[in-house]
């Protein structure tokens, strides 16, 4: 993962489906949205989060979960608890087959900015990454303003 600039964002996509993952990653690059790093399972996502700083992440929370569970929030907790190389407040969207009230409450507590339900479309994921880029630019502008007023 290279040095990030406001014009080149590094983002993470955790999703099992190879074709969806590859399509989003390659299209993000061609549209100049930044680099979307791909993880097909929890362990590679954990490793990427530990080693590299991201500006945002889209995570399939049913990726690699044990049979009796319907979702796994461990990656979100890893980021929000500051146990990753990323700023703990980075925007995170989640992908899930269907949402329940309990799940939505758990996601709200973890400041999830968007819940994406099936059918998963590359365009929706790309739009989500594009909003992350806008949020990052707005955050950078806010930080500059604060520096000027100090």
């Amino acid at each position, binding site marked *: 993962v290279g040095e990030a600039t406001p014009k080149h964002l590094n983002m993470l996509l955790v999703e099992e489906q190879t074709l*969806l993952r590859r*399509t989003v990653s390659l299209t993000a690059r*061609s549209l100049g949205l930044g680099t979307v790093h791909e993880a097909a399972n929890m362990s590679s996502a954990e490793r990427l989060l530990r080693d590299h700083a991201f500006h945002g992440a889209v995570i399939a929370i049913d990726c690699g979960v044990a049979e009796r569970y319907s979702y796994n929030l461990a990656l979100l907790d890893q980021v929000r608890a500051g146990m990753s190389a990323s700023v703990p407040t980075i925007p995170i969207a989640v992908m899930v087959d269907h949402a329940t009230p309990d799940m939505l409450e758990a996601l709200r507590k973890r400041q999830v900015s968007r819940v994406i339900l099936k059918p998963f479309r*590359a365009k929706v994921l790309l*739009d989500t990454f594009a909003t992350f880029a806008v949020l990052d630019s707005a955050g950078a502008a806010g930080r500059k303003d604060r520096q000027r007023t100090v």
Partner: protein
Amino acid sequence: MLAAPIPSNDAERLAALRELLILDTPPEERFDKVARFAAQEFDMPIALVTLIDENRQWFKARVGLDVCETGRDVSFCGHAILQPDIFIIPDARADERFADNPIVTGPPHVIFYAGAPLTMPSGFTIGTLCLIDHQPRELDATEMAILSTLRDLLLEELNNREEARRG
């Protein structure tokens, strides 16, 4: 109706296509899954991986269409292979090249068409990844980029096939 034009290098183009040994082969999951993905991604009733043979377009992968080939002269993909990039017809009924085409006026009622040419490293365009709807449509910039990516992934598969054949 304007019949699909024949490019001046068609003999060489056909030779490149036939060298792939792909025409009239059984369906393959690696091509089928791209067609399925495209149909779902763009919410299109028909998505095809087409190969343009001398007198027909043959479908290596197809979603939403029962036939395995149609005539080259009536094909939209026959036009698309002459284009440098994605060929879009938002409403075939309003386009004099296609308005009276039998596949517009009759089944499968091609109204919207988007075809991404499959241009091999040799420079020859052997077919398309195409999307068809029964109603007028447009694609925005993101959708065009997604279609280009899917085309590029198909080309990777076709190149792998060519390399495997050459051993």
